[in-house]
């Protein structure tokens, strides 16, 4: 048993931390919230040069062929600095979907430019009446000769404004209990008929309403088998959930460090507030919650890399991180007092992004239901 990262993984962390500390201070994060695009070409290029987009892409597609746990290390550092931009959309949502559902021609066409930083991708899944639920998807893709035509409105599509390609989960056939009838399409972001409207979220992260109005998709852009898009997509969402947990671990770690540093300088009633038991208990609770997030997330990622079934573990991680990260940030606020409530402080940035992270790829109850189903069907924990 050896629950720690390898030297190589520590190097990934070290280099990422160095790059992000320099290039992604909180002032940059604030700027990008205001900025329409939300990231800079310079930053994106730097990330590509470090090989980040290709970290988990196989070597035959010009990637580094590393594992999920290696990506988790990187995502944690990104979460720590609240890295803005379409990395998650591209590398996690786009990358994993191509790897799960793409054929060789599609992988060959899309992955190398993605690795080089020349291609931005995202996933359009949710709708007004459908949140991570394939059965209620109504955006439809109708056959048009050998090609398809997509009609309908998707919501909460991250980075749709900069995505060169949008993977759209659309209904091609009748639904059922297991998400039948959903197909995945690679849609050209510049195709006629696509319109986007920015959604104003609590974090100012770039999420969009995307309307598909008679958008044509050539048959070679069907990803995976017709009507069978949900099984690979489900796997991608599990990975995305764990990936989001990694970001939350990174964010939580930064909040904890800021808080611990603060209580060792702030004095009230003639002593450091870090010596008051109430403060010590808040900080201890933050540490315990965060340690829980950390190890349950790493374990889920490790299980994936080992080829072990990890659906339950992924949901356990997301269910836990959702609530634990909430508590960590809330206690951070409590300890910082008034100054932490001011927008000029970094804590509100973490608060806002924590809300988005919590809702992404399944909230607490969504994941608890998955855990319940797994445990009750196996009968044992």
């Amino acid at each position, binding site marked *: *048993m050896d629950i720690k990262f390898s030297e190589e993984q520590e190097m990934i962390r070290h280099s990422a931390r160095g790059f992000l500390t320099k290039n992604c201070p909180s002032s940059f994060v604030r700027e990008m919230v205001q900025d329409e695009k939300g990231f800079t070409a310079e930053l994106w290029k730097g990330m590509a040069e470090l090989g980040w987009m290709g970290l988990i892409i196989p070597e035959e597609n010009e990637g580094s062929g590393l594992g999920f746990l290696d990506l988790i290390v990187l995502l944690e550092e990104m979460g720590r600095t609240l890295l803005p931009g379409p990395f998650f959309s591209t590398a996690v949502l786009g990358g994993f979907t191509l790897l799960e559902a793409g054929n060789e021609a599609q992988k060959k066409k899309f992955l190398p430019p993605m690795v080089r930083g020349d291609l931005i991708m995202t996933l359009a899944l949710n709708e007004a009446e459908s949140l991570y639920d394939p059965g209620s998807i109504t955006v439809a893709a109708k056959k048009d000769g050998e090609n398809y035509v997509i009609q309908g409105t998707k919501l909460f599509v991250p980075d749709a404004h900069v995505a060169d390609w949008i993977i759209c989960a659309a209904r091609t056939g009748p639904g059922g209990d297991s998400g039948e009838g959903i197909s995945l399409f690679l849609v050209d972001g510049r195709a006629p008929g696509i319109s986007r409207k920015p959604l104003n979220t609590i974090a100012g992260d770039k999420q969009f309403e995307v309307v598909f109005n008679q958008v044509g998709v050539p048959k070679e852009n069907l990803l995976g088998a017709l009507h069978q898009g949900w099984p690979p997509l489900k796997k991608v969402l599990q990975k995305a959930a764990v990936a989001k947990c990694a970001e939350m671990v990174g964010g939580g770690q930064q909040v904890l460090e800021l808080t*611990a540093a603060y209580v060792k300088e702030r004095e009230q009633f003639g002593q450091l507030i*870090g010596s008051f038991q109430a403060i010590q208990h808040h900080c201890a609770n933050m540490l315990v919650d965060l340690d829980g997030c950390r190890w*349950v997330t790493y374990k889920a990622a490790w299980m994936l890399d080992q080829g072990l079934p990890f659906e339950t*573990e992924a949901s356990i991680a997301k269910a836990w991180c959702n609530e634990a990260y909430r508590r960590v940030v809330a206690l951070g606020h409590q300890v910082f007092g008034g100054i932490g409530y001011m927008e000029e402080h970094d804590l509100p940035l973490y608060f806002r992004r924590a809300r988005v992270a919590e809702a992404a790829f399944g909230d607490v109850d969504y994941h*608890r239901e998955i855990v319940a*189903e797994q*445990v*009750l069907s196996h009968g044992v924990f």
Partner: protein
Amino acid sequence: MNFNLTTTPEEEAFRREVSDFLKAELNEELRRQHALDKGLGPEARAFNRKIGQKGWLGLGWPEEYGGSGGSLIYEVILIQEFARHEAHIPNEIARYMAGPTILHFGSEEMKKEFLPKIVAGEIEFGLGYTEPPAGSDLVAMQMRAVEEGDYFVIDGQKTFNTESHYADYHWLAAKTNPKGPRHESISLFVVDQRAPGIDIRPLETLGGERTNEVYYDNVKVPKSRLVGEKNKGFFYMVNALNYERLALFQMERLFPTLNRLIQYIKETRRNGVLLADDPVVRNKLAQLVVEAEVGKCLEYKALSMLLDGRIDYEAGVVKLFGSELRQRLCYKAMEILGQFGLLEEDSPWVPLKGEIARLCRASVVDTIGGGTSEIIRNITAMRGLRLPRK
């Protein structure tokens, strides 16, 4: 990164050996004795000796004192299997506190007298630290040990000494230097629990276990039974970090209960619906499973650090999380069981043999004994985050 506890064929074989032994030897009566009285009955004692004979109580201990040498991982595997099979870890105090302290600080004579018998599972020790004035603040204890010729004469009162009614020896802390500096005022002794002058009075707990007040009236303890050096007791007590190993299997101990609860949920109808189909019950159960798995991850991380020799605040976190989880498990189970959760073991209609009612009562002390949650939080903040004392 590797979350597997056992990684070699030898380790796996040992695990299977322990598991097979426990499956064969543990019966209802033993389990009951383990759960309630912690090794009180003759069956439990015989069981302990059997384990001792297999050499399993001396894993990692020096061979010259009857141990079997070997690395820590085997001890860890043993404890984990015991926890999984809901068996009480034999001779806890002897093996994790008295034994290691004697090994590191005791005289040669003391080592030779006690260590082989501990390893053989022949003797039990009872912890003798707590007093009415000395709970979390152990240094506030008042029991006095005064030197008189070849003896120490000991007077005072201990309380919440849980093993005393069946232990052979009292692992006793008493003041030998009450006027001296706080952390140099205590000594440790090995006292014959049946010595004249010792009066053991039972205390009944909410959880149904017995604990004891232990009165010392002019008890003569030979000087040879002083552990290590006089007035160094506090240092030895703090150094008994081995005790933290025990805290490291709190999580596994919950899983059999959790699994029985899952079975109950699958089989029981309430208010027109199978509990397993009730969305509220599913949600509650899932949360317990989530927390149990998080607890297990924390525990494994702590174990990994223990095996590396670098464990620090993590052990306390495992105890903290595990104890609070156990309480939440009990309350959630009570909610799920409804009225039926109130029923005790001997009642008609009792589900799960009254386990939930009993566990609910018994888990009240979990956040108090072995380090209160508050003290552990203080230590976690100070050791884990370097927060200041003043």
